[in-house]
């Protein structure tokens, strides 16, 4: 067990997705190991942190922002995607509409957060499909295809049983670590500076 304040990197993560897909449940399961006692709709944002050690041997502190799902709140919460390096984009495998929204959430994230934000697509509530296979409305393969097309990580999970919840966060943090490490290496290399500058001015011209 590592101390809360003993970490090498601080990563800001956001939890997004339609209302009632289970964002707050996932967060509670990951942070406290239990579900919220009296579930309430999130207005604005809720907040939690957890420090974990990665295989690479360093400790990262995840600062997780749980956002409100109702669409109209994006006007305020989207400002808080800024500087997020990772996101859990959650849908409910029993509700196809919540999966369809993922496209929009993704664009919202990519246009508001860090440009190379790492996104983990999470199909929540697999426990319902295990209990009653007829409840599943979003195919595993369809979601996996979408994820690989869009360059997202992907898992199915259940906040209720706890299945795969820790795995989702671990994979996401590891990928963020790799991405940022890669970028750091590139920036440290003086021969790459010219190339980087060239690339950024190009993107500015693209509009």
């Amino acid at each position: 067990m590592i101390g809360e304040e003993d970490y090498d990197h601080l990563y800001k993560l956001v939890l997004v997705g339609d209302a009632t897909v289970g964002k707050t449940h996932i967060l509670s399961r990951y942070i406290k190991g239990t579900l919220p006692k009296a579930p309430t709709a999130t207005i604005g944002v809720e907040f939690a942190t957890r420090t974990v050690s990665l295989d690479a041997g360093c400790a990262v502190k995840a600062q997780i922002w749980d956002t409100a799902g109702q669409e109209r709140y994006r006007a305020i919460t989207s400002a808080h995607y800024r500087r997020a390096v990772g996101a859990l984009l959650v849908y409910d495998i029993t509700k196809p509409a919540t999966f369809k929204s993922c496209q929009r959430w993704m664009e919202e994230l990519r246009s508001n957060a860090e440009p190379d934000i790492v996104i983990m697509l999470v199909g929540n509530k697999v426990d319902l499909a295990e209990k009653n296979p007829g409840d599943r409305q979003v195919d595993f393969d369809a979601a996996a295809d979408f994820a690989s097309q869009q360059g997202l990580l992907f898992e199915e999970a259940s906040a209720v049983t706890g299945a795969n919840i820790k795995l989702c966060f671990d994979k996401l943090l590891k990928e963020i670590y790799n991405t940022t490490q890669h970028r750091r290496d590139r920036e440290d290399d003086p021969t790459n500076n010219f190339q980087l500058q060239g690339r950024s001015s190009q993107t500015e011209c693209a509009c």
Partner: protein
Amino acid sequence: DKVQDDVLEAFERWRRTADGEHHGIKYRLKTMFFSRQANDAGPFQPLLDLFMEGLTTAIRSGIPSTLRGTVWFLCSGGLSKRRQSSKSYEDLVREGHCAKNTVAARTIANDLPRTGCEENLISPLENVLLAYAVRNPVIGYCQSMNFIVATFLLYCCEEHAFWMLCSVIEEIMPVGYYTEDLRGLRSDLHVFNWCIEQYLPQLYQHFCRNAIDAAPIFMNWFLCLFVNTLPPEHAHRALDCTLHEGHKALFRIGLSILALRQKELLSTTNVVEAYSFLRQPFGEMQRAPSEELNFVEITPKQMLDAAYGPLFKNFRSAQIAKIREMCVARVQAEDEQAAARKKAWAAQNAKPATEEPTVSRHFRLGFR
């Protein structure tokens, strides 16, 4: 009718003990409640002003819980809303239950079990919210209404709660609080920020230095009229003031919370600590007590004394209105900037969109 007279009498007794003697008040009380055009009383205006002042002091001293429902209904303008409506509440409920396939109705269904109210209040809560979505389809349903109505239902019958909700959204709060773009609310968050700078400069500096932007928390305070933030007794006392005095009371209460918790807030060094504190500034509502935060207990009276005390003595609605105008313009500019940023982003990413037409269609839907 008889019941109303009895309640008015009880109300008058309470008001007198809370505020000293006022004779012949009953007539004026009725005048005010039954024709809420209080600004147009002709020669009676000075009398009415005097009466209003007394009533305000009385309400700030706390409405007894047995009278709360009635006073809320009358003071909030709920009664006027019922009188002005061409449709009855029953009709609206019926229509609401017929329109079960709308986005609003689906969101309501999701939120009913997540409101935290007693089992027997779920069905009235549903009726009120569905009826409102039918009455005002532009707003439909905005999360937070559920918490407000659940609080009304603790003291009022279902129908009164409905007309009070109408009055809160359409009269008491400024335009754009519960709408799709939340412009009114976002303007108020800027106004509140200005208030903090003005009245609590030390705290303001502290927030700036540590990059603590509490807007997502304050938005919860304002949208839910504090019912989601304060312990019940505090929240209901705050509602007494807001329903009677209007939305400016929210600023006073918000400021008083920050003032009373200034010491603790100044010792927070990052957004996370500040957030967990601001989320439940006077203690826990449902969660397990957090050990790091040692609360000094603040009573509802202390909170209201601070809100209407010397610290915010020169808090004037006229000035707030002027600042608000500037903030509304700022929000508009923000929206334009955001739209431009998204347009630029879209242009930048136009290439993959042409290869896969569905992406661009979704994209336009997302950022209309």
